């Protein structure tokens, strides 16, 4: 059973990956034939979703609960939500180019998910509620739609900046893209080290408890006030260069911080290599993919993503969250960091909607806001994890 599950996961990955490549081919191809290839790309994506569902079902059968209870499961579900939201929006707008950007993002997300421990953990009492998956899945579906809005916004920016219309924004757009490369770099590095079984561990004290902190990437940074237990050497690199500051308190904060540093370093190296080979900004590389598009349509797709996501997110991340929190912790809302950031995300998208509606913020401003909203979601997912230990199991 476990092998079936793992194979389904690999299958999902492969289908998303191939679908992404076909979408890119379609987007770059100007000939008539591309219509048919476009259909193939979508079919592959849908097949990926079906296999992904198969993966989740086998995981439910094995674990006895819906797979949204740890970081791996949640990010894998977020990837699923992204692809589902994309398929819904594709059904409305038939934009293949959107797929050429969304599907690679889905691939990177799934790779990122695989970086976290993949074993099925039993549910601690606080998580034993149907609200766990009702709340998490709806919130994640909303976030998936927001992510599609982000991608459409990004394409809009690439179109406008690439065509030379908005040169003032070039620097910021390039920076945004480099951050995405870092994300990619981190996933690649982690998967490589995981494949080769890299191991390092440290012990340190947290509130009178001796904690062992496992690393799966060579330690650039060690936990605050820690002792090394074992550190495999990597190209002769043996030990941490410095320690985390003491305010980083989350569970595994040090190894996550180490991961972030790895992401930045690998991302910058990848970007540097890219710039040496192709002497162009990234957005200039991507511009040919998008130059035939209608910017007004991109703007509408981005808005539509948010319009679809906003009610789902409100329902999942606020209303269902409150119902559950009231059952598990005895209060509908407690301003736990994760909750607060869900609130911030929601307020941000509310501001977006009002700005667009009443202040006429369309086009560039709207696209940047769509990017900003996604950054907030990622902050909630990654940064809040790192710094703070909250009540959420994958906090």
């Amino acid at each position, binding site marked *: 059973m476990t092998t079936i599950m793992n194979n389904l996961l690999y299958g999902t990955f492969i289908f998303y990956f191939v679908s992404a490549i076909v979408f890119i081919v379609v987007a770059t191809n100007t000939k008539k034939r591309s219509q048919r290839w476009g259909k193939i790309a979508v079919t592959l994506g849908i097949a990926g979703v079906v296999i992904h569902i198969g993966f989740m079902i086998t995981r439910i059968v094995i674990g006895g609960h819906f797979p949204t209870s740890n970081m791996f499961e949640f990010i894998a579900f977020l990837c699923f939500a992204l692809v589902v939201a994309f398929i819904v929006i594709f059904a409305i707008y038939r934009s293949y180019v959107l797929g050429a950007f969304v599907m690679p993002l889905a691939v990177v997300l799934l790779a990122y998910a695989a970086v976290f421990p993949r074993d099925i953990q039993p549910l601690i009492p606080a998580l034993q509620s149907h609200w766990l998956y009702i709340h998490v899945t709806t919130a994640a579906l909303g976030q998936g739609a927001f992510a599609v809005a982000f991608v459409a916004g990004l394409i809009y920016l690439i179109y406008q900046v690439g065509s030379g219309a908005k040169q003032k924004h070039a620097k910021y757009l390039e920076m945004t893209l480099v951050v995405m490369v870092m994300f990619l770099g981190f996933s690649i590095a982690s998967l490589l080290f995981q494949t080769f079984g890299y191991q390092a561990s440290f012990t340190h004290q947290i509130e009178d408890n001796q904690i062992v902190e496992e690393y799966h990437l060579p330690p650039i940074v060690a936990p605050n006030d820690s002792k090394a237990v074992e550190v495999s050497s990597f190209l002769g690199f043996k030990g941490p260069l410095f320690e985390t500051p003491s305010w980083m308190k989350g569970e595994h904060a040090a190894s996550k911080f180490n991961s972030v540093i790895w992401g930045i370093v690998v991302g910058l190296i990848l970007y540097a290599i890219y710039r040496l080979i192709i002497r162009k900004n990234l957005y200039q590389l991507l511009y040919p993919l998008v130059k035939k598009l209608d910017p007004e*349509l991109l703007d509408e797709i981005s*808005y539509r993503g948010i319009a*679809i996501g906003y009610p789902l997110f409100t329902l999942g991340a606020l*209303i269902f969250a409150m119902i559950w929190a009231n059952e*598990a912790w005895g209060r509908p809302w407690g301003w736990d960091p994760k909750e*607060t950031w869900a*609130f911030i995300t929601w307020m941000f998208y509310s501001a977006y909607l009002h700005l667009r509606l009443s202040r006429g913020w369309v086009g560039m401003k709207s696209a940047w806001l769509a990017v900003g909203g996604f950054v907030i979601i990622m902050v909630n997912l990654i940064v809040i994890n790192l710094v703070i230990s909250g009540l959420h199991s994958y906090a």
Partner: protein
Amino acid sequence: MIENTKCECGHNNPIGTVLCEHCGRPLDEGYSNEKLDKEMRYEGKARRSLTYQSSIIDQVWNFFSSVKIAIVLIVITLIMSGIGTIFPQEQFIPSSSPNTYYEQTYGTLGKWFYQLGFSDMYSTWWFATMMSMIGISLVVCSLDRVIPLYRALKNQKVTKSTVFIERQRISVQQAVSEGENTNQIDELAEKLSSKRYHVRKEKDALLAEKGRFSRWGPYINHIGLIIFLVGILLRYLPGWNLDDYVWVQEGQTVRVPQTQYYVKNEGSTVEYYKETEKSQKGPVVRKYRTKAVLYEKNGSGKLIPVTQKSILVNDPLDYQGLKLYQSDFRAGDLTGLNLSIMDRKTNQNLGVFSVDLSNITSSQIYKVGNLQVKIKDYYPDFAIENNVPVTKSQDPNRPAFLFETMEKNQPKGENSLVISGMDFPNPETNKYNIQLAGFDMVNTAGLMVRIEKSLYIYLFGGIVSMFGLVMGFYWQHRRVWVRIVDGKLYMGAHTNKNWFALRRELSQIGFSHLVKETEK
């Protein structure tokens, strides 16, 4: 502000009107298309905030009806909330003296964080102020808009000025051959009906409309939010809200704080996942369970049981809004010791007695066979400092006793010191030896005590809000105006969102050039 509000069609409009209420013609030809597009949101109606601007009340009204102000309020709130997560809120810190904790743990930044109130920001006056301002703004801005909008949408005229039609974002003009007028209108009416539009016809004009109800979505959503905020405000009423905590040992009955109820713990257990029991990370808890009985004290001071339940995490006891949550669990609190008395010479067990640690008095006598035992001294947390026995705390971490064992009818007995976990050498002259024979251990449940009377108000507000959101986002209000004047067909269309779908719909009924090449 326009002075002349009389339209060419002869209709007298209220001051502040942008599009004539009757025929839709812009009252000032100079308005840009952009301005008109924006005005379509409220059908070009006069709104109070745009009409009266002189008195103080008007200005307050205008302040709160401004969406710009609403956005500023929202953005300030979200930035403050963000700052509030830099360090943990007071309820999450492992210390009961936040005034020193933040500075000690986080330095100067922590000190500011505390002094500015961010450490407990959701109960500060300024956060409450922000919330109230958003609430007032919601009420005012909804009233300001919804009434004129309602009137406008209810009294729509079918025949609109051609200027109005021409200046819609989607607009087409085509030549029509003489005599085809009614045919054309009928044909379009039929096609639009098949797209589930409600069509109204007049001689040379047509108005097709669908999804009008979705225009109320945002307002219903705002009403839901207002209900929610009222729920929050009600929490300031006394007795509306209770948040307390109580520890109950197995077997004990204790008062539920701040209420007339009592709760008895009939057993607290912890279960582990079998498969994790031998894992190196330690066992994973599967269930915490407390069998609780809730009592109410009646007039004569007797406890009457009112309800009972096995409380689990995620499954609290709920009695008329009073909820008890399984929140903490402490295993193996020591409540009593069993001690046996041995005859030193014969090594014969003379009997056992048990000491209840929660109820130790100096006059208590334990009878064992012919012997009587008295507790002369009790040290719950025994230690020796400067050669004197002392107790480090009142918690029975290492209970020790000084017993006096007396034979029947003897005025004085022999002393023996018994320290749990230690074999203390008592004098050789002692006839009896007191030994530990066992412990009485119980578990203790930490129960959270909650009353939250606003719960159903929140839920109701949330449901109303969701209705509004779904209405507003998953449907759109689309309208098509057609008019034939002097051999020319004017078609104009408007939607409050999602223009692409409207264009596609119109292209399917014969205006195919409305869809751009890239969208096909």
